[in-house]
């Protein structure tokens, strides 16, 4: 029924034009479209020095050392160098944690004079050596050991001054430098003394450095599995962990809030400003090398305790009372220890601060007149401390008063000062304040070093685990600055420069803050996950109608090319 219909033949120019059209469409798609799509949909990830970050996180980049320099003054000893060598040997042998070690050094002025005439001439500089121990060199001295003969008939003893770094060591007058037994016993005594003084600091630093090198472990580690060295002082690792959970995290600034909470309407005022200025401000100034402090105070009235905290009445005369009712007999109200956990009625007591740095709260609580005197069971000071938060003291005024004077507040401030020192992490053992502050500086340097390193490690693992997060350039700048600060800190530690400008603490502070800034970069919110259906839905309307004709025409052109090539080949063979 149908004739053989043949369409009119196609001119070669038309065919070529058609091929060119298809080719140009494809070239636009491939040369312009694909790069554009790639540029606009790729996520910008700034390059990070991943290897360096990882090595810092594993603790391989820096072997932190805490060399403590101890100046020894032994004016009346004939051969101090020999004694020092023995003591140094004893110290090194007994030290399990080699990163924190003591280095003994003969005091310079003495070594000069003893060489001259064999007798020591006490220069005036020695007597009035500055208490902060800064020498002309870059290092600062951790302690000064002064060896003097004790009273006759006494054994070796030592005494630590409260206000300076001088350790007065009195050796027994029967000490004979030439006899080895005597010198050994003295050197052992000196090394034990020095170790005892710096023991607490060493435990803390070893714990900090060792617990930080591992990635966060999934299982709740039982106490004792951390790789800390026990040292020769029978360290209780649980004690160290308890301290770690008490101490506030380091921050360059702390905010101190002193609050007077009274359960009724009185007292209405207190002389806190003068008390702080007189009693606490010098301490805060001394601590300003480590952290700054801002202070404020408030008074809150009608501050009742949590409803489930009910103090019980304990009469004074325990045998005679059968019923524990307050019937005019003398006695006191007692709070049990497990009541203390819910003492702070956070629902009603306004304790929040808007500062971006952490707050340490100190509360003086004045109970209701009907519940006075209120005591905490088994507490000598009627106060308690909340780890990483602050301290509370219950004040029982002798008579109902509307104003608390400086004298009334002194016992509270005594306790708050002690609690502040322990919350900041200052070791309690050596009674000398300068040594405690130096220990705190060293501890905080170690803490900052490890925290910055572990943040870098977290960032490293994060970039590996989430390939779809964008990493802006500010992050790489911060990481670079962190790494340089960490390197500086490591160097300064080795040199023994802990405090002061450019010291390990300041470099560590910079490193930690830059690392936090890099990790908590605001724009690094994870890309909202696009399920596959959404991707199909976005691309299909564009790719479908555009892609199918292009593809089909490309296929057709290629088939035509192949056919032509076959014909030509057949023609060539035939010819």
């Amino acid at each position: 029924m149908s004739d053989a219909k043949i369409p009119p033949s196609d001119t070669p120019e038309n065919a070529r034009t058609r091929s060119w059209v298809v080719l140009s469409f494809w070239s636009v798609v491939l040369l312009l479209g694909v790069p554009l799509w790639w540029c606009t949909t790729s996520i910008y990830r700034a390059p990070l020095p991943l290897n360096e970050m990882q090595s810092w996180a594993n603790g391989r980049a820096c072997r932190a050392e805490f060399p403590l320099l101890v100046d020894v003054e032994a004016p009346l000893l004939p051969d101090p160098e020999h004694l020092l060598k023995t003591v140094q040997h004893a110290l090194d042998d007994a030290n399990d944690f080699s990163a924190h070690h003591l280095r003994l050094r003969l005091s310079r002025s003495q070594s000069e004079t003893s060489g001259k005439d064999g007798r020591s001439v006490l220069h005036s500089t020695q007597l009035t050596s500055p208490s902060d121990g800064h020498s002309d060199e870059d290092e600062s001295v951790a302690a000064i050991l002064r060896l003097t003969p004790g009273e006759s008939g006494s054994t070796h003893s030592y005494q630590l001054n409260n206000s300076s770094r001088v350790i007065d060591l009195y050796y027994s007058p029967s000490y004979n430098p030439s006899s080895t037994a005597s010198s050994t016993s003295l050197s052992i005594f000196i090394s034990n003394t020095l170790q005892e003084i710096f023991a607490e600091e060493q435990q803390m630093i070893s714990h900090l450095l060792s617990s930080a090198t591992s990635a966060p472990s999934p299982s709740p580690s039982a106490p004792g599995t951390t790789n800390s060295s026990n040292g020769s002082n029978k360290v209780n690792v649980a004690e160290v962990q308890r301290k770690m959970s008490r101490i506030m995290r380091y921050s360059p600034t702390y905010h101190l809030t002193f609050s007077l909470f009274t359960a009724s309407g009185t007292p209405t005022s207190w002389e806190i400003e003068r008390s702080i200025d007189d009693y606490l401000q010098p301490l805060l100034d001394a601590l300003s090398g480590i952290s700054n402090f801002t202070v404020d105070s408030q008074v809150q009235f009608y501050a009742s305790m949590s409803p489930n905290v009910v103090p019980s009445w304990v009469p004074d005369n325990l045998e005679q009372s059968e019923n524990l009712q307050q019937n005019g007999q003398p006695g006191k109200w007692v709070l049990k220890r497990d009541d203390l956990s819910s003492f702070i009625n956070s629902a009603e007591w306004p304790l929040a601060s808007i500062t971006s740095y952490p707050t340490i709260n100190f509360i003086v609580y004045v109970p209701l007149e009907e519940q006075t005197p209120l005591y905490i069971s088994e507490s000598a000071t009627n106060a308690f401390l909340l780890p990483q938060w602050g301290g509370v003291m219950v004040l029982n005024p002798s008579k109902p008063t509307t104003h608390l004077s400086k004298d009334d507040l002194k016992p509270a401030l005594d306790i708050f000062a002690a609690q502040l020192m322990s919350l900041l992490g200052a070791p309690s053992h050596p009674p000398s304040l300068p040594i405690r502050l130096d220990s705190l500086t060293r501890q905080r340097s170690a803490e900052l070093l490890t925290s910055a390193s572990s943040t870098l490690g977290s960032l490293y693992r994060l970039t590996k685990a989430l390939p779809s997060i964008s990493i802006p350039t500010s992050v790489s700048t911060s990481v670079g600055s962190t790494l340089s600060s960490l390197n500086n800190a490591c160097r300064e530690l080795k040199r023994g420069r802990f405090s002061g400008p450019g010291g390990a603490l300041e470099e560590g502070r910079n490193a930690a803050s830059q690392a936090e800034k890099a990790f908590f970069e605001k724009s690094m919110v994870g890309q909202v996950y696009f399920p596959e259906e959404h991707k199909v839905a976005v691309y299909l309307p564009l790719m479908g109608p555009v892609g199918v004709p292009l593809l089909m025409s490309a296929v057709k052109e290629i088939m035509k090319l192949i056919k032509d090539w076959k014909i030509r080949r057949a023609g060539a063979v035939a010819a």
Partner: protein
Amino acid sequence: MRLLHLLSAVLLFPSALTSFVAAADTPESVQLDNDYDESLLLKTLPGNSVLASFRFVSNGTFNDHHHTVFPRSLAQILEHSNARELHLKFSLGRWDAEQWGAQIWDGHTGGGTGVELWAWVEADDDAAADKRWTTLTNALSGLFCASLNFIDSTRTIRPVLSFQPEGHHANPDRLHLLHGGLPREPVCTENLTPFLKLLPCKGRAGISSLLDGHRLFDAQWQTMSIDVKPVCNSDGSQCRLQVVQTVDMVLDVERSLQRRDSPVPKPRPLDQLNCDPTRSYGSGDNCFPQSNLADLPWSLSEIFGRPLHGSCPLGTTDVCVVAPADRQVFASQASAEIKTGDKRCYTLPQKSDFDLLLPRQSPPLPIEVTPPPLYASRSFTGHGQERGGVQAVIRNPSPTETVKMIYLESLPWFMKPYLHTLKTTIPNSLVDLYYRPNLDRQRGAHLEAALEIPPNSTLTLTYDFDKSVLRYTEYPPDANRGFDIAPAVITTDKGYQIRTTSLLLNLPTPDFSMPYNTIILSSTVMALAFGSVFNLLVRRLVGAEEVPLRGQKLRGLVAKIKRLGEGKRKAE
């Protein structure tokens, strides 16, 4: 120069410990004698409503980090953001000016529906002021549990005439006034809780023990406001930082009493209805309610749901009732009464509960209400989703006084007014006009008009605006509800402030439930557009007769079916 330093030192460093005998001005503005004062004012309103105004005034010192009565959290926020004067208002409801008259405290405590905030911030230039404003709004949002952080540059304006600083500032040239509002913000117990925490007596003693969210948010109109400003005494020798916290509410007595009896409002049984016997048409089932038969009895513990626990020992407490002189008021025993005209004030007992009782009064006593200087209302005109108009009707009821007022509008950026269409019905009433046009997605329009209304006349202010189409992501989750437009603020030259109601603007809203339909639509468009062009370029077009037919089998089938169908029809 040194004298200047000295003067500024004197002005800025008052000593809190020196005793002061300050000549106090009106008790409302300067109360420098005490650290803390609180007062409760109860006023009976026509229609069996009671206006209760709680006012708490605390005085603190400048630049001092040690606080007693002044709330520390607020002081910290002010210091952090360098704000020198702050006014924050949370409001709900509508003040019925026709029935209740002029607003209490000259309208200064009431804000627009939702949240309204304005502050004078000290800064060197505009950019620093904006930054400090952001700090202030964020800090306040954390303190008051409100989304004040949404007050960003798109909602902030710098009013020129409407607001004047109420405090005494040492260097007003360095202050920037910024104003923002959120008309959509809900106000609920989570805003009342931090408000009460700022008070010294904390809801335990004194008048704050009456504040209960369940009654406060059942009121017909309620507002909570916080005003912080520096105040100095008359000779400027002593300056303190004062925070005035106010809670005002209008409670309906009948509704409160009903709630006490049954928490769920249920209709009254037929025999208890008061029907108007004078209406002739309809009887039996029809009942025209007769209102205002009597002044219902109420007491403090009944309408607030809890008794007043004594007085706050930290300062003075005043409870005053304004009721017609013939109305009886009974107070609990341990309190003394002082009567001045319509106002009866009581001193509260120290520790025991205090209650006031107003017995039933039938027939009701007439209550005098002062008419406000202006009545204002605002509404939309026009129809459609492209454009509309705003109409503000302002009436001056006074027979003799011309009222000079300032009308402030802060519009969102998607509502674009046309300034040339701004018209007023009374000629020559527009004295001054300040305008800042809007920029898409950056800032809204700011319109301030100074108007004069002659006595006994009504002014209608109208202007047209265009509505924009927003982007897909800019619509809120409940876009079909509409967008709230902040109330207009009207300030008279005597300092009386009223606000109109907020408006609900309907923008063209897409149907958010059809993303796949739009995908299909767009792919069809793409197919037609690209496909046609491409096919024209690439395909070779020949006549249909020149090509062998394809699909012959299909055609045969179709032809057979056609013949079958025709056969059937022929058979019928």
